[in-house]
């Protein structure tokens, strides 16, 4: 699992536990119904709930929006790798080979339909991904920390052999 996937697992796990606890509390509360009517007070407090939700969303927004993957730059010291997707193969063009430790600028394009460039370790961890639009080039910068064999899977449905659209390449030691 990637680091982001671990963050999601923990955060969603906590959210599910809290959500389940609230659900069970509401379920069990109906065994002791209120004698008097307090619903008007809860109606009025809905505005306070709105503010709580807004603050929580604002915090999540501020905590995440600066981590968008857009506009990455590999810097001057980079290795350029051109990747082309076709039904149903990847052409990974790295004439000089790929080395660990130096940023790799993947320039990804497609000649037929939409594809998804999914970069996996040989152990099956999804490292990075982006969409590939025919006729356009999209850039992904990734620095391999470990040498070894890496896999490219297609992460946008592209037809009958979509699942077989796999390529591997080797990253050599720095």
């Amino acid at each position: 699992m990637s680091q982001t996937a671990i963050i999601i697992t923990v955060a969603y796990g906590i959210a599910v536990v809290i959500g389940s606890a609230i659900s069970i509390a509401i379920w069990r509360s109906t065994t002791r119904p209120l004698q008097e009517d307090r619903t008007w007070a809860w109606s009025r407090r809905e505005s306070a709930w709105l503010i709580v939700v807004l603050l929580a969303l604002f915090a999540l927004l501020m905590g995440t929006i600066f981590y968008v993957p857009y506009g990455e730059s590999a810097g001057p010291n980079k290795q350029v790798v051109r990747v082309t997707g076709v039904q149903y193969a990847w052409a990974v063009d790295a004439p000089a080979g790929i080395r660990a430790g130096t940023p790799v600028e993947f320039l990804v394009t497609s000649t037929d339909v939409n594809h998804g460039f999914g970069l996996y370790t040989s152990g099956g961890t999804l490292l990075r991904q982006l969409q590939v639009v025919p006729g356009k080039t999209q850039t992904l910068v990734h620095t391999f920390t470990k040498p070894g064999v890496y896999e490219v899977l297609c992460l946008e449905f592209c037809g009958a052999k979509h699942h077989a659209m796999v390529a591997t390449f080797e990253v050599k030691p720095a």
Partner: protein
Amino acid sequence: MIDDGARAVARRLTLQYLGASTAILAASGLLGVLLRWSQAVPQARVGDNFWYAMMTAHGLGTFVGWAAFAVMGLSWWILAGVGFPTRGFGLVMARATWWLMVVGVAGVVVTTLIMGFGASWVFLYPLPFFGSGEWGAWATGLFSFSVLLAGLAIVTWCFGILHTVANREALHAVSANVFRRLGISLGWGYLMPRTFATNPKPVPYAVIPLAVIGIDMIIATLPLAGLLVWQILESAGWVGSADILLAKNILWWFGHPVVYLLLFPAVAAYYWLIPRYAGRDLVAGHVIAIAWTVAVIANVLVWAHHIYLDYPDGTLQAQINTAMQPMTFSLVLPSALSLYSLGFTIYRSRFRWTPASTALFFGLVGWLLSGLSGVVNATIALDVAVHNTLWIVGHFHHMAMLNIGLLIFGAAYALLPELTGKALYSERMAWVHVWTTFVVGMLVFGLWLVQGLDGAPRRFSVLPSSYDTITRISLPLVFVLAAAQLLFFWNVFQTVRGKAGVATFDERGIPEPAKGGRGWSAPAAEAGLVLAALVLAFAFAVGGYLVGRERAGGVATVTVPTETGGAAAGDPARGKELFASSGCGGCHALADAGAAGNVGPSLDGNPRLTEELVVARVTNGLRAMPAFGDRLSEEDIADVTAYVLQSAK
């Protein structure tokens, strides 16, 4: 209150929609089971394109043909229930919707399962025109036409809904102005009571989400209709290609709001039914009208969160995507406030727990949990880890089956007696169905979340083998989930046949258990639990057996028989041209052809090259190698083979 004639009209509409959508659920749900089965068991594997064609039919069938169609049908009865009759133009639209939807779904079934169209339900342009020989222009044209009919069904439904909710008499609107009336139906009377004046009472809450989606789906569907018309014309060869990135944006311009075509009418049903079972009015502040005003605007301005990972150089897509993260977050408001209101409506009330209200309650839990996983998808920095993985599949099955689906089941149990006048056939069967659907559904869809976090890609007919264990664990659960739905079908069928006699209702309008109907006896309940435990244990044992056998390497590899007959010695010169024109050099290295591809094995210096092997690989493909058997004739392949054998060094 509306008169009996208007109630009869709404009753008929709702029953027609529910009947058709339930039949579609039976068919497309079965496809879902077959899809997971084919993934889990090598011996049950269907052909790749057929798998994707089934996936296309399952997606459109369950999402639009069942869930959307069913809540669209419930809407007529909800509106009648809160005093809004469907009549005149609205009724014409409501009837047209039924026919358009049924014919559209039938067209989707024919073009996918029979004609082999397998471009998935999002038919991401230009994939419909790149069928790899699996489907042709006719299938693309007819599929586009069928989806267009379903799209038009959505538009006519919207007109019907807007006509119904703008009813001046039902709104008690002071003004006759149509825009004022629409404003009232959007809940603006709660915020600006003087401009959107009503006398005496404000709009019922259940009307607001219907008015919102009625407006939004017209805005959302029309551009998609344009794209579909373009696809029809292109398949006939009358126009050229469309802009691909624009087409992608148009698809999701529709693709996001259509999710709320399921959710918002479902919210209307919750607003209407939960108070009935709680025995008190909906606990809602005027602030809820603010949330729905945000919804009507934001719903059509968040489409790009489905294409967060599209940001080609030289386009504005990255900026659009970034702007849509806060917009998407704002759509949390209607859900957060609605769940607050519905939660407090139930909290410490004299809630009457029946299978119907339990399903509604589970639906709210499903809404909460799927909403939370939706927040992950809405966040760009997190989406990068789960985009187009099985996490997404888990998220929307939670949403579609455990929120919308359970609401539909709950509404069916709650409303069938008043719609048909007949008592529910079996409360006991309904209890088992509701609990099993929720508990087993959580497990089945939860396993997708787990696989997705582990990087498993979605829309793979054959998953990488490292995911096989969880896939096989989920298969018996899928069977249990499907078996539980059989109880629902049987229960509804017997109810409609009047097997349990005439319906009676308590003072809140809640249907009472059938007279003489058998309730739970303690031995029956215990026997049921023991049986369920045994079935689960057996199912896991089968799963474990399959996993173990796989690990032991006992599964026979499925090999495609090769056809080599009739491959005469070809013409190498023609083969050289074909080698270049077919793009072989993109993947393979062959010095004679000036090809240096490194995707597939090099042809130079390859000791395995034989006539038989080359013909077989070119004809049938293997892994990344596409099959050329449908693009090249046998003679062509013989020529290429002759060239490769002659020139490879």
